[in-house]
């Protein structure tokens, strides 16, 4: 048994793929441990500090206070504060969510008090008697969004996202196992590598769609049965204890009403699914092409670890950026245009913000272009990989027969 264990370990660890995967892992973890420095290098705003400009020059104390409340004072910033009679008006406040509005209100109140104290140097009694709280006006009222349905949809997208981890590996494992079992010799004598590649990818997508349909269908059947039983009340009340649904939702019908599935929201969900599928497809192509270079199932399993960690890091980074200001600008916005990361960040932005058609179109074009480029470039690499051909240089025949 010892020999079997040692043999298995050798096959898993003593190979080039393990070395590369460990280097990848080291790189990911090093980046994680130095994420703040990387963010600073690329000029990303420190978390929580929204740029704010005051119409009057702020003192050093005011600057320190601003940082404490989560703002950083700049001469020119989209978010600005002007003095009005009896208080302040906040301009371009649409980007602020509820928490940031409260923080800004608290900051401006403190600012006003500090001014009063600086000007009048009052006693405590005078302060209580004469200080009047300021009015803080926002030029854009805060939109009360039905947070419930976005959270619900995001929960479903999260579940689908973690299916990606399995889906990306599925096709690559198939290729590796066919290589190991020598089945490819017969198959490739009858069908070309290009057809094999396309069949693997499309077969994988079809499998995912069919599995999804089957899962949804099964869920639908059980939901109908449960609905017949108690309209879903028991289940939803239980789920509300964990904050998964609102307490008011006590039936499946109410759940659907909460989702408020109008055309606009339907389009949002469709776009979210589109970006998620693009990201999944890109990952699948990458893993499938890499599989042609792997020699055994053990190597394939070793490679999946760093890929999973990468996807998990991406997920947690996405969660950390899941606030309106961060998704409106900075890292969250940029990530929604980058292939692979856009499969999380773009759905988050679609569910949280009202995006213009231009932004959605741009991100969509980038995603589709990346997918198509990888699809065709990947085909060439796949063919060469299966035929043991070098990707970039041609072999030169040496020591030809004399």
């Amino acid at each position: 048994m010892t020999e079997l264990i040692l043999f298995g370990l050798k096959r898993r660890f003593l190979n080039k793929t393990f070395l590369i995967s460990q280097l990848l892992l080291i790189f990911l973890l090093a980046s994680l441990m130095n994420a703040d420095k990387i963010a600073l290098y690329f000029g990303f705003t420190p978390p929580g500090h929204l740029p704010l400009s005051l119409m009057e020059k702020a003192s050093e104390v005011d600057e320190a206070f601003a940082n404490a409340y989560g703002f950083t004072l700049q001469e020119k910033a989209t978010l600005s504060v002007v003095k009005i009679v009896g208080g302040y008006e906040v301009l371009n406040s649409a980007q602020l969510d509820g928490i940031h509005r409260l923080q800004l209100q608290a900051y401006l109140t403190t600012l006003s008090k500090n001014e009063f104290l600086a000007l009048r140097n009052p006693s405590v009694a005078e302060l209580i008697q004469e200080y009047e709280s300021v009015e803080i006006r926002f030029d854009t009222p805060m939109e009360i969004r039905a947070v419930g349905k976005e959270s619900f949809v995001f929960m479903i997208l999260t579940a689908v996202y973690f299916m990606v981890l399995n889906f990306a590996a599925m096709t690559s494992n198939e290729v590796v196992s066919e290589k190991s079992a020598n089945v490819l010799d017969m198959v490739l004598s009858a069908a070309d590598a290009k057809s094999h590649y396309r069949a693997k990818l499309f077969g994988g997508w079809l499998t995912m769609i069919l599995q999804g349909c089957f899962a949804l269908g099964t869920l639908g059947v059980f939901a109908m049965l449960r609905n017949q039983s108690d309209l879903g009340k028991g289940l939803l009340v239980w789920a509300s204890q964990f904050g998964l649904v609102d307490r008011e939702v006590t039936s499946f019908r109410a759940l659907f009403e909460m989702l408020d599935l109008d055309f606009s929201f339907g389009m949002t969900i469709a776009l979210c699914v589109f970006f998620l599928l693009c990201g999944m497809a890109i990952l699948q192509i990458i893993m499938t092409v890499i599989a042609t270079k792997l020699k055994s199932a053990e190597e394939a399993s070793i490679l999946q670890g760093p890929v999973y960690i990468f996807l998990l890091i991406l997920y947690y980074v996405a969660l950390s950026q899941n606030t309106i200001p961060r998704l409106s600008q900075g890292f969250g916005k940029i990530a929604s245009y980058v292939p692979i990361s856009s499969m999380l960040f773009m759905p988050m932005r679609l569910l949280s913000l009202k995006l213009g058609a231009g932004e959605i179109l741009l991100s969509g074009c980038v995603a589709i272009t990346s997918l198509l480029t990888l699809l065709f470039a990947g085909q060439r690499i796949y063919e060469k990989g299966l035929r043991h051909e070098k990707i970039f240089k041609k072999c030169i025949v040496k020591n030809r027969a004399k």
Partner: protein
Amino acid sequence: MLEVKGMSKTYGKHLALSDCGFTVQKHEILGVCGENGSGKTTLFRCLMGLIAKDEGEIRVGGKKIDEGVRSSFGYLPEQRSLYTDLSIEDTLVHYGRLRNMERDAIDRRIRELYASFDFTIALKTKVGSLSKGNQQKVQFMACLIHDPQIVILDEPFTGLDYVNLEKTQSFLMDLAKKGKCILLSSHQYDELDAICNSLLILKEGKTMDYGNLDRMKNEVGKCTVKVNSQVPVLQHLKEDETVEIVGNSSIIQTQTPQRAKKLMNLLAKDEAIRDLAMERIKVKELIRLRCTP
């Protein structure tokens, strides 16, 4: 007709195949032989496009064929390449469909192949439950399911018992008679001797000899004369001729076929001699001669 010119393949620094060329006509069986690691499998895999050749040209019927699948070829790999969880029927249907055959045609072809191979195992039997020899037969059938004009067989006799060996030999000769071009490699030299019209001998990737088998044997010239050992023969032999006792027979090695005929005529005059036969040099001996410096 299959024509190959200048085929070369290198794996890193190792020269697996160097400037290999040959032609296989219709009705011809070309035997490819050599020591282990001489490049036989590499040659076949390059022909099939399973690995990328470094140099070389392949023509079929005078036309250069593209890289990729040679779908008109039938290929039998050296190793078992079957899905063991599929049944025989599913396997053959799968490979037939990969070649765009209709189901009727596949079924008809399966019946033909079953008859040709004298195969009696039920179609629903799982491939994984078959013996090695029977799996080889199924793989053979899968390679021929589309009735290819060019058939490439890498070690087709591996795993076959004596009876099936003879049946396979006979089957291949029938295929050749039908106008197929057949390339096969084997370490079973008696089988190559029995069925091949031409031979390609490889050593360390290089071609040591190639051509019509009869011509190659005649060029070497060595023959053996077999006679029952009770008869003294030494007085008839020249200095460069050797005799070896094998069982009840004496095997005499001569340097030329003419000398062998002359010796036979001499020995035939002796009334005590009952068994007398002449054989030209065997493939095994031919390879040894060509590959030994």
